[in-house]
């Protein structure tokens, strides 16, 4: 899919469920692929008995990566110019996550769209809040 400026307006919302019942196995997959083997994300015994958390929890970068899927499905492959944000709350096994992009600004001068990006869990808690921009067709 490729976004065209004529099809976009400020306030447009694109939303996708990027995790439904997030599994511990997916957290382990992310450890292996990313190379971040912090046991807080894979080792239930360490996370509970040593670190004092209720369970292991997701890498912030896994949440951002899942938001990236929503973004590239929306703006097209290889079209992102920027993508960033803040990790606001932890993501736990079993969470259902919804990622949202909202059109904040269209810049016809450089053919780009600027988006607010958020990921929320099913309690309505925002776990990631940020932005992205992408090249669009005029």
């Amino acid at each position, binding site marked *: 899919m*490729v976004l065209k400026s004529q099809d976009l307006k400020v306030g447009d919302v694109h939303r996708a469920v990027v*995790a439904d019942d997030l599994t511990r196995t997916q957290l382990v*997959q992310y450890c292996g692929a990313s*190379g971040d083997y912090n046991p807080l994300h894979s080792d239930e015994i360490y996370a509970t008995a040593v670190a004092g958390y209720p369970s292991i929890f997701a890498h912030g970068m896994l949440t951002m990566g899942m938001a990236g899927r929503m973004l590239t499905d929306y703006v097209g492959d290889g079209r992102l110019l920027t993508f*960033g944000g803040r*990790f606001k709350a932890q993501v736990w096994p079993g969470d259902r996550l919804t990622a949202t992009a909202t059109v904040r600004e269209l810049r016809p001068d450089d053919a780009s769209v600027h988006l607010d990006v958020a990921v929320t869990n099913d309690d309505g808690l925002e776990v990631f809040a940020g932005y992205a921009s992408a090249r669009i067709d005029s």
Partner: protein
Amino acid sequence: MPVDRFPVEAGHIMMFARAVGDPNPVYSDEAYARSTEAAGVIAPPTFVAAAAQFDPDYVMRPRIGEPWMGSGRTPTGWADRPSRTGGGTGLHAEQHYEYVRPLRPGDVLTARSHNGQEWTKQGRRGGRLVFRELVTEYFDPEDRLVLRARSVVVRTEHPVEKEG
């Protein structure tokens, strides 16, 4: 993180896309990807995080033959080290990317890092919070910038009872 040599590999991109739950064939199917605007397999937008695999000093990877912070016979192999749950624990607070072009299999990138801004904030429970920025730029063999990453890590100055 500074990395002298980050070889971008097709199998690594496929595994990373699976791990973030992205079934887009542009990350794994060369024939399909060639037929798209991407004109070949590309890496997902946060793939560069996996450069950690190629950082020889990356602390969040067990070192062969050395005790590891995670569990084995005991809940942690680092029982004799200071607590990892309170003071001094870095939490990833922010991540920002600026893209010049997508990463592709066959790219061999070099990453150079420098410290960015530093600021403090009064935390509700953990005493003073220290935020530190690290800017890492990834270059191709011709020294052209491919991607700029800026991360913010927050550390608590004093141990906290328990982090949220």
